[in-house]
């Protein structure tokens, strides 16, 4: 029962950081595209790569949560 609380807290609190990061990357990517629409394909690639990195942090949490749950 203790681990359930830990998993809930881990995911709930830990996901805040990556969520902010992804939102920020998306917003600054969009404003960059708005300023310079010709470079949109380059910006999009870099944006998706950065989002993947930010998401990876949430995935670390998920791995820890799965380990707590199943191991």
């Amino acid at each position, binding site marked *: 029962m203790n681990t359930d609380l830990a998993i809930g807290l881990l995911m709930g609190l830990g996901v805040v950081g990556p969520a902010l990061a992804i939102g920020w990357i998306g917003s600054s990517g969009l404003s960059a595209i708005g300023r310079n629409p010709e470079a949109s394909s380059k910006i999009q690639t870099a944006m998706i790569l950065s989002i993947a990195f930010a*998401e*990876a942090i949430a*995935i*670390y949490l998920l791995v820890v949560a*799965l380990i707590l749950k199943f*191991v």
Partner: protein
Amino acid sequence: MSSGIHISLNAETLFHIGSLPVTNSMFTSLLVSLMLLIFAIIFRTKFNARSIRPTGIQNFAEWLVEVLFGLVHSVTGDLKKSRHFFPALSTFFLFIILNNWLGLIPGVGTIGITHQQETYEEVLASESEQTSFSEIIQPALAATEEVHGEAATGPSTTHSVFVPIFRPGTADLNTTFALSLISVFLIQYFGFKYLSFSYFKKFINFSNPINFYVGILETISEFARIISFAFRLFGNIFAGEVLIVVIAYLTKVLVPVPFYGLEIFVGFIQALVFTMLSLVFYNMATAKSH
């Protein structure tokens, strides 16, 4: 027990060769390697260097090589470096993306064999004498495979374990850890090859205290790369598998379809991320420091 979701964090053993256990993810990554090998052999037989208008498989292979080489070359900007880095990086990319996408084919993870696990049951039976059986079996079952462990059907010792034959290699931490070890070793190899002994000045530097401290940080970050490479790939692919299993269990037809689309995208992105990061690290390691 049969209605529960089958999720296993580690790859399960299919059979043994001598004392070496062959897991399902090992089997699948061997299959992927075989597929790549067969593709290469077929391409080699069909290859015609003088054809002006390549068709079919040659067209596809040339497109693949061109795109990947363009990706490598756009970062290095140096033909000699690109030629050095290209083989390892394209192998990473093709191996990872095939593994990721293989996990999405229906049948992977659902076709399997069931076999009895005797040793595990003996441990359970001996332990159940001391404490009550239901208290033991619930966490023990949860630890092995089940999410919905409603398995307290009395103390019968015939417990069958379902083992899927196929499991994408990248959904196993061993495979991704091996890949990341290879990648980080190649960073050191290329760095040493291009800068010889001055490469190690990055790590051990007595010129002044700040550089010495930076060297320590560089050494730590080199080890952190291994872990972050391994966990990023493993976490993404394994989480995708779990997501699809859970969605397919909770809902009916058509609802998992968008998640399949998402997972195809994630599989591609993660292969690209692994390749790009390795590429950037190789490029950084071989650049002259100033």
